[in-house]
């Protein structure tokens, strides 16, 4: 950030305390940061969205229809992956999906035009890690509560040859334990990569334009067109990553609920 026009693509992920810098719990600082602010905004937006769909009319209006479409989407996702037992996870998966979806999308809002920096808190693995550990903990709790120690049979898939019994459970155990990391890292990396890419391209636009009309034509304008396309792609990724997080959580819950 030394000379004008250079852009630090990582600056957008910087966490800055807004207030409460001296708040602590058991010695840990819990300042209310820009990240917390956008979590609050996402929470508020989601609450308003769902509350607007609670008119409970027999013939739904547009808003109610939209909310019912989302709950119906999660409901059918769980019905398809878990079966009739999946109904009780609708509140959790719905919260997870909508919270991540709104977080991803609000990070792409063009609020920079009015000088506001929309912070994407799903680009921090501290946040995605908490959500992944929550999902993984629910899987463990449900699995052991429902199947007791029989839950360990998850690590011996059907049709495992006897002579491979020393190897398969180890592989299965590792793949099982990797799940929370893959959940958390997938979302964090996907969100961060898109934002970094957009930031790098925007620095191309700015720097090439500063270098004169020729470089603006050769580098700046193609980069700008690419940014438009990638912004559209990022909206898609925002939806897909929220969906993948919800889908994988429901698949893991299926293991816990039905073994296999």
């Amino acid at each position, binding site marked *: 950030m030394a000379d004008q026009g250079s852009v630090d693509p*990582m600056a957008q992920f*910087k966490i800055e305390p807004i207030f409460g810098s001296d708040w602590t719990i058991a010695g840990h600082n819990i300042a209310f*940061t820009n990240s917390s602010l956008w979590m609050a905004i996402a*929470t508020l937006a*989601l*609450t308003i969205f*769902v509350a607007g769909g609670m008119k409970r009319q*027999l013939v739904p209006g547009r808003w109610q229809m939209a909310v019912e479409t989302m709950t119906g989407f999660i409901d059918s996702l769980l019905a398809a992956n878990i079966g009739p037992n999946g109904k009780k996870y609708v*509140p959790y998966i719905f919260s997870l999906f909508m919270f991540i979806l709104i977080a991803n999308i609000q990070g792409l809002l063009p609020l920079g035009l009015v000088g506001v920096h929309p912070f994407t808190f799903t*680009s921090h693995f501290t946040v995605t890690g908490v959500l992944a550990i929550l999902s993984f903990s629910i899987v463990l709790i449900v699995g052991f509560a429902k199947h007791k120690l029989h839950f360990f049979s998850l690590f011996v898939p059907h049709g495992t040859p006897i002579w491979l019994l020393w190897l398969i459970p180890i592989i299965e155990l590792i793949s099982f334990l990797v799940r929370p990391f893959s959940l958390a890292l997938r979302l964090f990396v996907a969100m961060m990569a898109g934002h970094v890419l957009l930031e790098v391209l925007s620095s191309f636009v700015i720097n090439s334009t500063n270098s004169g009309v020729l470089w603006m034509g050769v580098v700046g304008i193609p980069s700008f067109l690419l940014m438009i396309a990638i912004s559209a792609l990022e909206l898609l990724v925002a939806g897909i990553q929220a969906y993948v997080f919800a889908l994988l959580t429901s698949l893991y819950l299926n293991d816990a609920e039905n073994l296999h």
Partner: protein
Amino acid sequence: MPQISQLADTYASQIFWVLIFFGFVFFIVGRGMVPKVMETVAARDGQIAADLAFAEAARRAADGAESSWQATAAQQRADAHALIAKAKHDAAAASEARLHAAASVIDARIAEADARIAAAAAAAMAEIETVATEAAGDIAQRLAGISVGADAARSAVKEVLHG
């Protein structure tokens, strides 16, 4: 990379606030509102299914009523046809009987008239015999000057008239 360079300073705040806000989302929105939304959907689906079932039942009832009405109509039509046929048959029988009666009256009158004609013919024949007898007696007297007895003249006339 702030995610790592700021990790030590911010992880507690990040974890704390995401738990607060996601907890709020889960308990207030997920547990509080979503079930009500889904209840509404389920109630609507139930109502639609009930309405469809009711409409189906009503359609069946209408079909049943129509077929029973058709059976009644067919029955009534058949009754009417039978009634008409019976009336026609009765009327035909009655007119035949009356024709029969009239015919027998006419036959009787014809027979009576025939008898009268026969009687009149016989009477006329007798008259002719008498006249012929007298004429024969007269003719015989005038031409041959023979006085023929009435009986002889009658038998002669009879012989001529009846061969």
